[in-house]
C-alpha cells in the first residue's frame, strides 16, 4: 500500500458512507433501485476499506490524517486498534441494518430522506471512532446528534416528535457541556492525539480540581448517550422510532458512541495512572454498577417489548463502563469485548422485535404466546440473543461476563461479582419468561395485525436475513472466542497496547 493511500484511508472510510448519503438526499422517491444500489455500494466499499485498514493495524501500522482547524487542535483522523474495534462493529452492523431497513421501510413515504440521514449517521459514528483528538471527537459527537434526530422523528407522529424533542434536549445540552469540558481540558493541556496511557499526567499536580471538573463534565455528557443513571431518560422514549432506527441507536451508533467516548476518555486522555491519582474511578464504578441494577430492575416491569429491550440496553451498556472503570487489564478486555458483543446481541433482539411488529403486529410481551410456531426462525434468533444477554455459554455474552468477573477479582473488587450475579439473575428473570411464552405457551387468539410479507418464508427475507446473520454471529463470537479473528483477541490486543506503555 502506498503512503498516499495510507494517509487518506481514514477519510475515505468516512466518505464511503457520507457521499452516497448526500447523493441519496437528492433522489426522488421513485428511484428505488438507484437508491438501494447506492446504499449497498457504500456499504461494500466501506467494508472493503475497513478490511484493508484492519489488516494494516494488526500488523502494527498507524493511520493518520489531519486538517488544520483550531489553534493547537487540528482535525485528526487516526486509525488505531481501539478505533478499529468500533469501526468494524459499526460497519458490519450497518450492513445488516441497511438490508433490514430496506425491507422494513418498503412502500413507506420519505425514504430518500430516511436513508440519507441513515448514511450520515453511520458516517458520523465512524468519524467518531476514528477521531484522533478530543476536538475532533466533539465535532463528530455533535454531528451524530444532528444526524440521528431526523431518524428519531421520522414517523412525524406527535409521540415521535415528543421523543425527538426529548432526545435533542438531552443530547444538545450534553453537547454544550462537552464543549465546555473539552475547552477546559484544552486550556490546561491542549488537545494532543489520543495516546495510550493518557496525556494529562504531566499537568496533574496543581490542577487536580480543574482536571476533576473536566472529567466530571465530560463523563456527564458521555453518560447521556451511554444512558448512565440519572441521564438515561431519553432512551426508552426514543422507542417510538422505526425498528431499524432503534437498532441503530442501541447497537451501532448513539449509545455505543457514549460508551466508546468513556473508553477513550479513561484510557487515552486521562490514563490509568492519572485516574488513580485523581481517584476518579471509584465514583464511575459505583455509578455504572447502580445503572446495571437499576436498568435490569426497570426492565422487569415493562410490558412493551421494545421498552423492555431499551431498559436492558441501559443496564448492558453500563457493563462496558464498569469494565473500563475497574482499571485492570482483564476487566478492560471484558468491557471492550462487551462493546462488540452487546452490539451484536442487542441488534439481533431489535431485529426480531421489529419482525414481530411488522409481520404480526405484536408490540406487547403478552401477545408473544406461541409465536415460536408461527415464526420459528425469528423466535430462535430472539432466543439466542436473550441467552446471550443473560450470559449463558456458549454465546458471546458469556465471554464478556466471564472476563468482567475475572477482572473484578483481579482488582480486588469482589462486591462487583455480586452485582454481576444479581444482574444476571434479573436478566434471566426478564428474558426467560419471554422465551417461555414464545415456545411453550399456546397462541392466544388471533395475531393483532397479521401481514403476509412472503410466500416462502415466515416474513420478508430482507427482515429475516439480518436477524439470522447477527444471531449466527453472536454464536460464533462465543464459540470461536479463542481464535485470532474474534473480538476477544482483538480486545486483548488493544489492552496489551494500552497497558504496555508503562
Amino acid at each position, binding site marked *: 500500500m502506498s503512503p498516499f493511500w495510507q494517509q487518506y484511508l481514514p477519510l475515505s472510510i468516512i466518505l464511503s458512507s457520507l457521499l452516497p448519503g448526500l447523493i441519496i438526499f437528492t433522489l426522488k422517491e421513485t428511484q428505488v433501485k438507484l437508491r438501494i444500489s447506492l446504499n449497498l455500494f457504500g456499504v461494500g466499499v466501506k467494508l472493503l476499506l475497513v478490511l484493508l485498514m484492519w489488516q494494516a493495524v494488526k500488523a502494527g501500522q498507524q493511520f493518520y490524517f489531519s486538517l488544520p482547524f483550531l489553534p493547537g487542535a487540528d*482535525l485528526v483522523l487516526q486509525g488505531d486498534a481501539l478505533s478499529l474495534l468500533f469501526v468494524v462493529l459499526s460497519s458490519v452492523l450497518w450492513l445488516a441494518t441497511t438490508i433490514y431497513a430496506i425491507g422494513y421501510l418498503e412502500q413507506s413515504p420519505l425514504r430518500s430522506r430516511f436513508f440519507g440521514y441513515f448514511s450520515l449517521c453511520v458516517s458520523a459514528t465512524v468519524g467518531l471512532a476514528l477521531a484522533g483528538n478530543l*476536538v475532533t471527537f466533539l465535532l463528530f459527537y455533535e454531528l451524530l446528534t444532528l444526524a440521528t434526530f431526523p431518524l428519531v422523528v421520522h414517523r412525524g407522529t406527535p409521540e415521535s416528535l415528543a421523543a425527538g424533542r426529548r432526545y435533542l434536549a438531552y443530547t444538545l445540552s450534553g453537547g454544550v457541556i462537552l464543549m465546555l469540558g473539552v*475547552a477546559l481540558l484544552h486550556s490546561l493541556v491542549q488537545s494532543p492525539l489520543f495516546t495510550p496511557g493518557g496525556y494529562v499526567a504531566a499537568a496533574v499536580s496543581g490542577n487536580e480540581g480543574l482536571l476533576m471538573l473536566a472529567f466530571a463534565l465530560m463523563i456527564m455528557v458521555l453518560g447521556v448517550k451511554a444512558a448512565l443513571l440519572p441521564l438515561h431518560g431519553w432512551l426508552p422514549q426514543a422507542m417510538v422510532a422505526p425498528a431499524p432506527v432503534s437498532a441503530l441507536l442501541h447497537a451501532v451508533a448513539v449509545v455505543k458512541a457514549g460508551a466508546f467516548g468513556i473508553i477513550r476518555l479513561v484510557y487515552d486522555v486521562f490514563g490509568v495512572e492519572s485516574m488513580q491519582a485523581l481517584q476518579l474511578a471509584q465514583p464511575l464504578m459505583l455509578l455504572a454498577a447502580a445503572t446495571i441494577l437499576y436498568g435490569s430492575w426497570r426492565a422487569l416491569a415493562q410490558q412493551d417489548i421494545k421498552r423492555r429491550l431499551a431498559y436492558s440496553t441501559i443496564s448492558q451498556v453500563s457493563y462496558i463502563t464498569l469494565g473500563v472503570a475497574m482499571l485492570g487489564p482483564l476487566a478492560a478486555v471484558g468491557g471492550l469485548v462487551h462493546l462488540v458483543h452487546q452490539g451484536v446481541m442487542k441488534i439481533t433482539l431489535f431485529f426480531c422485535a421489529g419482525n414481530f411488529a411488522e409481520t404480526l403486529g405484536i408490540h406487547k410481551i403478552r401477545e408473544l404466546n406461541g409465536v415460536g410456531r408461527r415464526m420459528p426462525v425469528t423466535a430462535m434468533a430472539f432466543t439466542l440473543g436473550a441467552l446471550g444477554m443473560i450470559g449463558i455459554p456458549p454465546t458471546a455474552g458469556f465471554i464478556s461476563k466471564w472476563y468482567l468477573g475475572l477482572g473484578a477479582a483481579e482488582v480486588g473488587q469482589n462486591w462487583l461479582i455480586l452485582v454481576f450475579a444479581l444482574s444476571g439473575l434479573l436478566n434471566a428473570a426478564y428474558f426467560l419468561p419471554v422465551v417461555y411464552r414464545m415456545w411453550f405457551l399456546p397462541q392466544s387468539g388471533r395475531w393483532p395485525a397479521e401481514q403476509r410479507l412472503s410466500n416462502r418464508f415466515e416474513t420478508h427475507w430482507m427482515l429475516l436475513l439480518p436477524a439470522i446473520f447477527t444471531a449466527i454471529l453472536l454464536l460464533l463470537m462465543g464459540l470461536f472466542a479463542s481464535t485470532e479473528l474474534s473480538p476477544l483477541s482483538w480486545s486483548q490486543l488493544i489492552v496489551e497496547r494500552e497497558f504496555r506503555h508503562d
Partner: protein
Amino acid sequence: MMVVLLVLPLLGTLFMLLWPKIAPLLALLTASVCSLAALQLLFLVSEQGNQQVLLAGWPSGLAISLEANSLSSLLILLTALLQLLVGLYAFATHRRDKLGAGFWPLSCMLQLGLTALWLSRDLFNLYVCLELLGIVAVALVSLSGDKAIKPALNYLLLSLFGSLCYLLGVAILYGAYGVLDITVLAARWQADLPSSIALLLMTLGLMLKAALWPLHGWLPAAHAAAPAPVSALLSALVVKGPLFILCLLWLQLAGATQVAAVAPWFAGCGLAALLLGGVSALRTPFAKNMVAYSTVAQLGYAMLALGLLLRFNQPLFAAALWLFVLAHALAKAACFLAIGEITATLGGKRINTLKGASQTMPLAMFAFAVAGGSLIGLPPSGGFLAKWALLQGLWLQGGQLFWLLAIVLATLLSAAYVFRAVVLAFDRADPVAPDFAPRILPQWLALLPALAVWAMALYSEPLLQLLKQEGL
C-alpha cells in the same frame, strides 16, 4: 483600490437612477466588481500591511483619510459578497415578492455607506456614514408598503435620536481637542469629565443604532416588517456598523479608568441580550420575528466579548468578537433568506408555517438548520470557532465560572429556538396543491451563506491570523 470601492457604488446608484430598467443588472454588476476589488484589497493588506489613502491630495489632518487594515478589508469583502448574494436573491424573487424598484439604488447606497464606514478612522466621517446608513436602512424597510410604515417611522426617529447623541459627543470632543482623527485624538486623550460624557453620549447613540440591549426594542419590528432581502442585509451588516464604531471608541480612544468602569456593564448588557433575546425568540409566534430576536441575542455575544476584552485585554476575546461578527453575518443572511423564501412560498407569517417544511421545501429548511447550527455554535461552524475562542479565553483567565455557565445557558436557548423551528419542519406536512413547485434557485441562494459559515472551519487558521494582527 479603496477609492474604487467607494466610487463604484456611487456611480452604480447614479446609473440606476438614470436607467431604472436595467437597475438589477447594474446592482449585480457593481456588487461583483466590488467583490473582486475587495478581494484584491484583502490580498494587498495581508501582503503589505495597512493601507492609507488621503483623498484629493490634501495633507493629513485636512483630507478625508481612508485606512484599510485586515479586519476592515475582510468586512468590505463580506459586505460586497453579501450584497451580491442578496441582490441575486432579490432578482430571482422580485416579481413574486413585488419588491419596489427602489431596492436596487438603495442597496447600492447601503454598500457605499458600509464600505466607507469600515474604512473611516475619523469621528465625523463615521458620523456621516452612520447617518447615511440609517436613512437608507429606513427607506429599505419602508419598501414593504403600508404595513411597514409604523416600524419604519419608529426606526427613523430612534435612529435620528441615536445619531444626534453621537453628534453631540463628537461636538464635545471637537470642542475639547480640536481634532477628530481617532489616532491623533487617542494620543492626546485625557480621561476627564468632558471626554467621559462625550464617550457615554456616543456609546448611547451607537448602542441604540446597533440594537444592543437594552436599546434593542425597535429591531424586531423593523427587521421583521422589511422584505426578506432587506432583512438579511439589515441583520447581517447594518447593525454591525455602529458596533464597529463602538469598538473603535472603546478599544482605541478610551482611557484605562474609563474602560475599567464600563467593561462590566458591556458584559452584563451582552449577557442580558443573550438571555432575554433568546427567550423572546423562543416565545414569539412569528417566524421572522424569531430570526430578528435571534439577532438581538447574537449581538449579545459580540457585546459580551467586547466587555471581556476590555476587562481582561486577552487577544482571544478580540478574535471571538470578530469571528462572531463574521459568522453571524453569514448565518443570519441565510436564515432570513430561507425563512423569507419559506413564508413567501407556503404563505403565512407564523412559525407554524414551517410545519412539514422538511418535506415541502427541504433545501430552504436545510439552509435554515445549517445556519442555525452556526448560531448555536455547533462544530465546525464559524459560530463554534467564535465560541471556542470565548471559552478558551475564559478558562485561561481562570475563575470565570459565572460567565461560562451563562454562555452554556445562552447556547441552550439558541438551540431551543432553532430546533423549535426544525422540529416543526419534521412534522408531517399538510397536503399541498398538485401544482406546488417551490423555486429552487432562491433556496440555493439561501443555502450558500449557510454553507460558507460552516466552511469557515477550513479557513480558520488564516482567518485567525488575519484577525490576530488587529487589536482593531
